């Protein structure tokens, strides 16, 4: 197996300062928000890599940098051996980019209400001047809808059906990598199952690679081949689902798994996690998790832990054994 996507020391900083006049009058400096900080990981071909984390953990920002909706502040995104930020040959970059597609969370907002489904699905191909005859019909059938649906408008479909249309559109340009940003968060449980099954089937049939971005641990456990856990823009742990769920190494991962509601947790009384995610503009020193960590020591307050190999995965914690 070789790595299809390699992300190296990826960092993204947003300038969230007030306008310059306010800064002068209020005597304040610039405010910089580090959404993603020094993240490294690789996605192997034909696998599903899941990024999990709570809101503000930077998971969507990483996805957006991978598809090119945002530029990295520092670090590299390499897809299929091509460095998307530094590669000089524009044709090479364009070719790799055409192999990357994205599915968004809200199927109500990501389809143009004034376009027919046929035009929506064929657009990625049509915009490059490709042949679109019968394409939408074929793809609709592939995602479990009826070919005659091509003439309808998005409002005629339910949430689950719309997400299928989004998937069909993503498939139109024959991608190899699909970034799925919370693909089922807006859907009901029974519909979520249909969409997840469809995604698994397509992965098998077409040899797709997925980057799955979600906060739902149950979905991750079912879908992922490898999981990266993010906290405040930093990757804190990476492992395969079995090791991660059975023996989480990082205290944050442990906290997250304990806090997730369980179907068999009847009347479960566990002390809920303490505190909240800190302000990303002014993150804690050392390990970002130390103010909430039950086992934090002095070193955690001073030094940021590096990612180190441990067991079958990697973990960024001074005290993980």
């Amino acid at each position: 197996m070789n790595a299809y996507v390699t992300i190296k020391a990826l960092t993204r900083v947003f300038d969230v300062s007030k306008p310059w006049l306010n800064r002068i009058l209020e005597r304040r400096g610039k405010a910089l928000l580090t959404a993603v900080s020094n993240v490294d990981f690789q996605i192997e071909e034909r696998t599903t890599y899941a990024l999990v984390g709570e809101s503000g953990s930077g998971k969507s920002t990483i996805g957006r940098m991978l598809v090119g909706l945002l530029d990295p502040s520092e670090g590299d995104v390499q897809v299929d051996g091509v460095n998307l930020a530094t590669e000089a040959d524009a044709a090479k970059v364009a070719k790799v980019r055409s192999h990357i597609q994205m599915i968004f969370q809200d199927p109500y907002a990501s389809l143009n209400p004034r376009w027919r489904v046929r035009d929506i699905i064929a657009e990625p191909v049509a915009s490059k001047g490709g042949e679109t005859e019968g394409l939408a019909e074929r793809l609709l059938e592939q995602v479990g809808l009826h070919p005659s649906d091509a003439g309808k408008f998005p409002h005629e479909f339910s949430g689950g059906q719309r997400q299928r249309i989004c998937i069909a559109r993503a498939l139109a340009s024959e991608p190899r990598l699909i970034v799925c940003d919370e693909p089922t968060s807006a859907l009901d449980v029974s519909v979520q199952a249909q969409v997840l099954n469809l995604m698994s089937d397509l992965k098998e049939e077409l040899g797709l690679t997925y980057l799955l971005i979600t906060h739902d641990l149950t979905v991750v456990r079912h879908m992922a081949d490898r999981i990266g856990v993010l906290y405040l823009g930093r990757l804190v742990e990476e492992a395969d689902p079995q090791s991660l769920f059975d023996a989480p190494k990082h205290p944050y991962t442990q906290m997250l798994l304990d806090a997730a509601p369980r179907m068999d947790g009847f009347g479960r009384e566990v002390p809920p996690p303490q505190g909240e995610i800190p302000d990303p503009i002014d993150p804690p020193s050392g390990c970002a998790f130390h103010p909430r960590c039950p086992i934090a020591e002095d070193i955690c307050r001073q030094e940021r832990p590096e990612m180190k190999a441990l067991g079958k995965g990697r973990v960024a914690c001074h005290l993980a054994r």
Partner: protein
Amino acid sequence: MTTPVLSIRNLSVEIPTRQGIVKPVDGVSYDISEGEILGVVGESGAGKSMAGNAVIGLLNAPAHISGGEIWLNGVRIDPLKGEEMRKLRGKEIGMIFQDPLTSLNPLLTVGDQLAETMLTHLPISRKEAAERAVAALEEVGIPGAAERIDSYPHEFSGGMRQRVVIALALCAEPSLVIADEPTTALDVSVQAQIISLLKRLCRERGTAVMLITHDMGVIAEAADRVAVMYAGRLAELGNVRDVLTQPRHPYTHGLMASTPLASEGQKRLHQIPGAMPRLQHMPNGCAFHPRCPKVQKRCSHDPLPPMAEGRAACWSPLLAEAVE
């Protein structure tokens, strides 16, 4: 048997539309006792929020209660109108909505909002109300309550805002709290905090809670009893452990099986074919029959069998076979 705090009998809600009358809630009955958490679970469009809104009198016209009765502490409240209902709301029934930002007034400090609610419903002085407001914030676990009492809602984080909403819902000491998806907009770790808070406060005060959610995990951990709704009707009602581990209604069974957790180690998730019927095109007989794996001839035309505690509204319930 003591009187239940809330008793809903055969409640129906109708909305007249151009295509005819639709029934988002159709013949629903359940009780909630003191100190009990009833989970109301269902997918979008199941009518679970609509039933909650009917109880607190927040149906938007043209939706209206078309049948049935709602009893609160032995008093029938569904015929109440305008001012009478307004007095009851807030005093006897507290409401927690999904989005904490839209349920707080952005132009008033949280202290003013708490004091206003208490002054409206409780016979106390302005000074007392201000003191109680601080105590209420402390009780829901907001650190530095005395200083934060003069903060505006936007100065709080999502989890803290939801705590303020809970304080607001409970400050007039209602006997019933309706929590409509209280944690759906929150992160996992904050969700655990809020659920644990809600459980603790209701146990301490003996408040009855209607917990409306689509998350089976939340139901399992928080609720004592559960009502499963489908297409405006009650599919199953019973003790939470019984319903979730041994569902009787094929819909409950399908719903449980399609959660990724239940199919651990399997490649494919169990899926229920199709989608919830639209209200304008409600099937005859059992609303679930077009999607049901155990459908029989009578399901498509006979009215549903009567519902009772620990039973399913189904002609071929799953558990009955095992018993007989």
